[in-house]
């Protein structure tokens, strides 16, 4: 994406919401040469500039989803970096962090570099690679974290699995301090969770499915908080799903421990009731839980205990999901429904203010993961999300840019939709009218 | 618009007819030796009970009485829609070599009797099977014939013949009714 010879882009008359500048007012944003030239107030229209009418829409720093699975290398049949980045742009995201549980695992600088280049070639949302914590994600030997950072990795995780050895997690947290990158944990005690396919509760008792108790997550949450305390490292909790986990992270933050946390859109909107009828599009790990958990997660977002909103976008092939429940793989897609779900369940309900929502989807992801962007201040990256926070639309999986169709929101009405996505000054997505 | 059902036999007439039928059965059978009376659920069973009682009073012998539910042998099960309720079949002793008289209330198409014959064949091999019906309304669709008939009547197609027995309906009588009418009737 060359910055030279680019037309200026004027985003005119939208509600500009930029928590990093304490801004929430109607105004214009001007982009030049791939960067933010000016922001706020009524800016004039420079000669030759492209003008996008944003009246009635919100203009925010580009949204970043730090937890997605792009499946490439290895499973290009279900998603490629290109289709995933396109899906992200269609959802309003200007950047995503791609998890390393690919085939082969992204545990070395060559694969990290490959993912980065594929993202750049795709030309949609920016793709920041995660590197694996351990070789092959086997949980035995530390991978070459330094080399991976050099090739472009922004964080480390063995997501898909937990790091079962506390010693290895401790080492990773200590070693990662050298590079000042977060270590992200998929919190799941396998001895409690093994064989489980949904939340342990009355629903699993009725359906005759082995359940995964909340404690399987919480045990690792507190373990890793204590290890972060010991090492001074930065632990980031992936996809929290229980009330207990929120309480533990709050405990950690109160003591000044460097812990951050994320929550998925589906975990703040859907309960285990979605599994009724053995619906495999409601099967993911960690599973959907109860209304009480949803309430705690929403409170956690509102009071800042949980920093970020993510999707854990996990496409699967139709045939793989078209199976007996216990055998179906875990995961649902989320990039193209996230904004709608978040606006419907958090903004419309008043759980979060607009500033808080934009913060959780844009500013904080950039801040926590040390990524460029997350702000509309002059001179920063020309990444902008333009969205309509109240527009009503019905989810139709067949329209997705992602190859994955596995969504539990199919046929549902959502309020809130991306209307345009700008990356490096280029409009990489424009919603059909 | 509603026509009152036409009475064919009142309670007294039913009684007289059953007595005559019982006599005819004894005549046909030459007494009560090896005689088994089998009623077809449901009203055939009540009528069979009455006949057995009449024979008991007359001859001092209690003839064995069986009950046959033919639901599972119907030839229209695949097309009748929701499953009809199945009643209890009960045949005393073996029927091999016995003389069975089937008793039913109304003989019409003959399909019920055809089913009854198939069912009896699954239980054994009687020496003979005879058929006694209270009402023969014609309209046969199969070559089935009653040996003993209480009363023959002519019925317009679409009309219904309702038989009421004391034990089940609290009254007795035989009526012809139009299809629209609910089964009721005054004696």
């Amino acid at each position, binding site marked *: 994406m060359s910055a030279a010879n680019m037309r200026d882009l004027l985003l005119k008359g939208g509600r500009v919401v930029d928590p990093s500048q304490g801004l929430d007012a109607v105004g214009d944003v001007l982009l030049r040469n791939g960067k933010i030239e000016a922001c706020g107030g009524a800016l004039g229209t420079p000669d030759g500039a492209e003008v996008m009418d944003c009246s009635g829409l919100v203009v925010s720093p580009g949204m970043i989803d730090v937890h997605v699975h792009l499946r490439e290398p290895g499973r290009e049949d279900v998603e490629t970096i290109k289709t995933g980045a396109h899906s992200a742009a269609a959802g309003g995201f200007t950047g995503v962090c791609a998890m390393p549980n690919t085939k082969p695992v992204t545990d070395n600088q060559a694969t990290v570099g490959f993912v980065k280049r594929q993202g750049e070639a795709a030309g949609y949302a920016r793709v920041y690679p995660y590197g694996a914590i351990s070789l092959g994600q086997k949980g035995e030997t530390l991978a070459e974290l330094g080399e991976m950072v050099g090739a472009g990795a922004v964080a480390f995780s063995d997501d898909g699995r937990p790091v079962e050895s506390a010693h290895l997690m401790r080492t990773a947290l200590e070693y990662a301090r050298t590079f000042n990158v977060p270590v992200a944990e998929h919190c799941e005690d396998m001895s409690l969770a093994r064989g489980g396919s949904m939340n342990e509760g009355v629903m699993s*008792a009725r359906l*005759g499915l082995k359940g995964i108790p909340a404690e399987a997550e919480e045990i690792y949450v507190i373990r890793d908080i204590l290890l972060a305390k010991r090492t001074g490292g930065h632990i980031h909790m992936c996809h929290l799903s229980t009330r207990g986990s929120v309480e533990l992270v709050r405990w950690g933050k109160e003591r000044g421990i460097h812990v951050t946390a994320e929550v998925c859109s589906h975990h703040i909107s859907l309960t285990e009731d979605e599994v009724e*009828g053995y619906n495999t599009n409601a099967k993911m790990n960690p599973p959907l839980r109860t209304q009480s958990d949803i309430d705690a997660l929403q409170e956690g977002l509102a009071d800042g205990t949980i920093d970020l909103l993510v999707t854990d976008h996990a496409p699967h092939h139709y045939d793989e999901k078209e199976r*007996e429940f216990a055998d179906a793989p875990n995961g649902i897609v989320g990039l193209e429904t996230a904004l709608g779900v978040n606006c419907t369940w958090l903004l419309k309900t008043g759980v979060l203010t607009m500033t808080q929502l934009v913060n959780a989807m844009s500013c904080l992801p950039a801040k926590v993961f040390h990524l460029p962007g997350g702000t509309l201040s002059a001179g920063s990256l020309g990444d902008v999300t333009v969205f309509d926070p109240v527009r009503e639309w019905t989810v139709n999986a067949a329209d997705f840019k992602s190859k994955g169709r596995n969504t539990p929101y199919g046929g549902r009405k959502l309020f809130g939709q991306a209307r345009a996505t700008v990356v490096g000054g280029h409009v990489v997505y424009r919603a059909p009218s | 618009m509603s026509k009152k059902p036409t009475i064919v036999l009142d309670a007294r007439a039913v009684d007289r007819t059953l007595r005559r039928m019982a006599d005819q059965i004894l005549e046909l059978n030459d007494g009560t030796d090896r005689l088994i009376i089998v009623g077809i659920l449901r009203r055939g069973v009540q009528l069979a009970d009455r006949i057995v009682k009449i024979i008991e009073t007359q001859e001092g012998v209690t003839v064995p009485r069986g009950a046959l539910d033919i639901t599972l042998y119907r030839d229209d099960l695949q*097309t*009748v829609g929701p499953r009809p309720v199945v009643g209890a079949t009960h045949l005393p002793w073996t029927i091999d070599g016995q003389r069975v008289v089937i008793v039913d209330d109304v003989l019409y198409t003959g399909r019920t009797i055809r089913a009854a014959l198939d069912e009896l064949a699954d239980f054994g091999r009687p020496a003979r099977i005879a058929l006694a019906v209270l009402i023969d309304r014609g309209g046969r669709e199969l070559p089935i014939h009653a040996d003993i008939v209480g009363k023959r009547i002519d019925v317009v197609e679409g009309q219904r013949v309702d038989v009421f027995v004391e034990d089940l309906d609290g009254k007795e009588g035989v009526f012809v009714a139009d299809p629209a009418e609910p089964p009721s009737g005054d004696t």
Partner: protein
Amino acid sequence: MKGILGKDLLGLEQLTAEQINVVLDTATPLKEISLRQIKKVPTLRGMTIVNLFFEASTRTRISFEFAEKRLSADTVNVASTGSSVSKGETLVDTARNLEAMKIDMVVIRHPASGAAQFLAERIESNVINAGDGMHEHPTQGLLDLLTLRDRFGDLKGRRICIVGDVLHSRVARSNIWGLTKLGAEVAVCGPRSLLPNAIEEMGVKVFQRIEEAIEWAEALNILRLQLERMEAGYIPSQREYNRVFGVTRERLERAPRELLILHPGPMNRGVEIDSDVADGPHSVILDQVTNGVAIRMAVLYLLSGGRPEQAIVAKAGVV
């Protein structure tokens, strides 16, 4: 124009008390057929029924086979082990292949909960759940209800306790649904590690000790204890299980009333149930087996209730 049970029998959770009673009322007169010399009625003549068993099971399969043959249906047995993944042919493909061969009904037993519903949603044939994972075993539940009803008459207010590994038991779940719908009071008794955490929310009392359960109940439905449970660490040993939870003659003698004893089989004599109890005067275990065939005949009869299109075709005079 569906029958009273609809297209499939997947479980007792979705049935009404009325539907359950129709099955029990239909099964009762059907018992007599198994007592005849010629144990056959022509009712399902010409129908093809496939017994699709993905889990080894002799007794349930044989019971279904008897039921099918006594109704004059043609039976085909397909046995397979393991999930779609290990077999290499998905359940969907298996189902579609069968359907292409123009079959009328499928009886399926499968190790995955929800497998029967999965199949029923994808094929037009009637589907009968003969046990799906830990979810339900509706014909077992129904035959247990019939056995209890034959002895007790009305089940309203009757106290029935299910004893054993309820957590992993589809028989227990079907029984809980069926009994509560017919108004019985249901309890479970077993080691807490083998009871679902949320079991009370299913409308059921919990007894921690077998003595308390025996004191309270009018009938016990005793579940088989599987070897795998010891191996997976849920309870220490079979011997301990028998000591603490076994239904023995001594325990029954101390009961305030005479309890009916049920067991879905096969029994681990000396583990969950002692031989003198299994063979004793209050055991109705063999009645359960007899009732099993009648119940399955009733279910086949009620589900096969005339396909609507055939009715329309017949009425139009086209054969």
